[in-house]
């Protein structure tokens, strides 16, 4: 299924915290990222890709245009998706993740806006976010090719002239020859990535110092 990148505008993260952000001691455990699509009409969302950076749980809410003249509604399409099995340890902390429309709780048609709610309950991490966020929509189906009539409706072939005795059946011979040809083609297409084993260049291994780059 083809997919097409949708240009989006990712707004800055907003921390949700009780009390004044500047004076309180602890670090926020919930962040919200809004994603808008300023120049795109409501579209069918296919896939969301991003690189995690120490986020433990992800919730996604989507604003969908249900009917032409009603205001768009917010719906939760992914709830508490676990990115880090143990929020205190590093497992899954910097992984690349893809989320597909079939994993979502609702139908992802006519998406207008996205909201990602990131949660990291562990106080051990200094910050957390998601990076390299990319949204994809369903690509156009490949255009159907129109075949010329003689190709799509071949004329039934006439019965061949009766064979002389002792000759093999031509259709069997041709199928065998085809198979042999396919084998030779496969062998010719083989290429290998093994090394030859020489470590010098043209018989010379006189080196400078080791390079640092």
């Amino acid at each position: 299924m083809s997919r097409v990148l949708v240009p989006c505008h990712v707004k800055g993260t907003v921390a949700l915290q009780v009390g004044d952000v500047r004076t309180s001691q602890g670090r926020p455990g919930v962040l919200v990222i809004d994603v808008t699509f300023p120049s795109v009409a409501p579209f069918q969302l296919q896939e969301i890709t991003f690189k995690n950076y120490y986020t433990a749980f992800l919730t996604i809410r989507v604003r969908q245009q249900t009917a032409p003249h009603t205001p768009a509604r917010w719906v939760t399409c992914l709830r508490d998706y676990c990115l880090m099995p143990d929020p205190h340890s590093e497992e899954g902390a910097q992984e690349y993740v893809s989320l597909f429309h079939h994993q979502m709780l609702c139908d992802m048609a006519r998406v207008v806006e996205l909201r990602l709610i990131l949660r990291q309950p562990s106080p051990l991490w200094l910050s957390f976010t998601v990076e390299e966020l990319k949204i994809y929509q369903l690509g156009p189906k490949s255009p159907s090719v129109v075949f010329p009539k003689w190709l799509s409706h071949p004329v039934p072939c006439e019965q061949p002239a009766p064979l002389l005795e002792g000759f093999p059946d031509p259709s069997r011979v041709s199928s065998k020859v085809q198979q042999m040809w396919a084998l030779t083609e496969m062998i010719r297409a083989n290429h290998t990535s093994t090394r030859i084993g020489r470590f010098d260049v043209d018989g010379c291994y006189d080196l400078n110092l080791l390079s640092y780059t």
Partner: protein
Amino acid sequence: MLQEESDLSLIIAQIVQKLKGSNLYAQLERQAWASLQRPEIKLESLKEDIKEFFKITGWEKKLQNAVYSELSVFPLPSHPAAPPEHLKEPFLYMRKALGSWEKRILKSLNSMCTELSIPLARKRPVAEQKELLNKWNEMGTDEPDLSLFRPVYAPKDFLEVLINLRNPNYENGDPLSFRTHLGLIQVPLKVKDIPELKEYFVELGLNTGQLGIDDSTQVPPELFENEHVRIGQKVLAEQDSAAAQQYIRQGSPTALRAELWALILNISGQPEDILYYEQLKTNVIQYDLLVDRLTYKDVKLTASNDDYYFVFEDYLYQVLLCFSRDTSVLGHFAYNCASPPKSYIRGKIGLEEYAVFYPPNGVIPFHGFSMYVAPLCFLYHEPYKLYQIFREMYVRFFFRLHSISSHPSGIVSLCLLFESLLQTYLPQLFYHLREIGAQPLRISFKWMARAFSGYLATDQLLLLWDRILGYNSLEILAVLAAAVFAFRAVNLMEVTSLAAAEAVLADISTLKVMPLLQIFLFATVT
């Protein structure tokens, strides 16, 4: 699930590509062509008939073994957007630390080169080549002056780098929190705890027979040993790598060990392998490398001084010098985040056509490297077989012991596993040692970095390495280190300094490995 199917087809495609260049592929092709002569192979059902032929003649088993062997080192399937360095090591701070450590090693080697005015590599004059060829089987009698050479680094230097490893996003501040690391390693990798280890090492449990415990003289052999040997012979007859790996988790009988290890590592003695080894030998004779001096020095300092291994000194040179020239080892950098050192032909700096790796295998030996080879000398007597087994063990396991990575079998995870096991299950001992300034990892690091080679008695070491092969993981080294501390806990509680603690643990050659592991994992009241 669509995702899993596409992952699987990607893995299959990659393994097929890898195996296409191998000897096995050429042999299978030859066999397939030869089989066309047979009457049961028909052209219409060519594919099925040849598959059936392979099954009957045992070639399918060989292919299965090869695929199994590739899968054991294959990195897990990952996201298409992930760049290649992310596949090898997902954490950026680890890649950076590894990069700066490698730079340090390169600087050290370069300065040795310029100070001593010895080139990194030179072609030997013909007379010297002849002399070396004559002396090939007794290179140990050579006494070159190596006093000016020093090892590039020792395990304790590497430990200092690991201690300073920090995740920039982690709370490393002063106030002690519930997750402060009281040990030396300060990165929060995920390690197994004892319930998870019990499940992982279930075949080492109290109810399962073990070689190393149930083959001692007091136990009648009919109870376990005879049956185990019989099963081992059957596994060897079947030539199945996966079955051998499962079997060896309970230990390997001494008589079958060499063949079992070769089967698990998928090494069969082919004429091509002997030729390959001879080619490497020719490379050693033709070229003299600076790292050869480091190898000599290492062997003289470590293996030659060891009571068990000094007899194998000549073998060690024959293996290690060839190892430095083997470019096939470069293949392991596909799943190892480290990078092989690079250099250019003299006068052609910066031109990519003249870029080469130095040493040709990309691995710079350090102090104690030869101890990875020494125990294998007890099992294999032909140099080419010994060489192949060592090379395979290195690219599967030993490279993880001197490289910075977050892999569960990497040395960082092993250190963290050791420290967390000790801290959780022997808190008093851990606290006491920390208070007297004897952090336990400072003592156990050298054991783990050498996979206990040179510290345990040889038969015990081989029983331990059986389990490394059986579980395809090095975590058992950390468990054994913790078990040794648990065993000597009473004595350690009475020491008052790091030197005294080291003295208590200086000699572990009398210890029996399997009872210690069993007691620590399955019989300790927690």
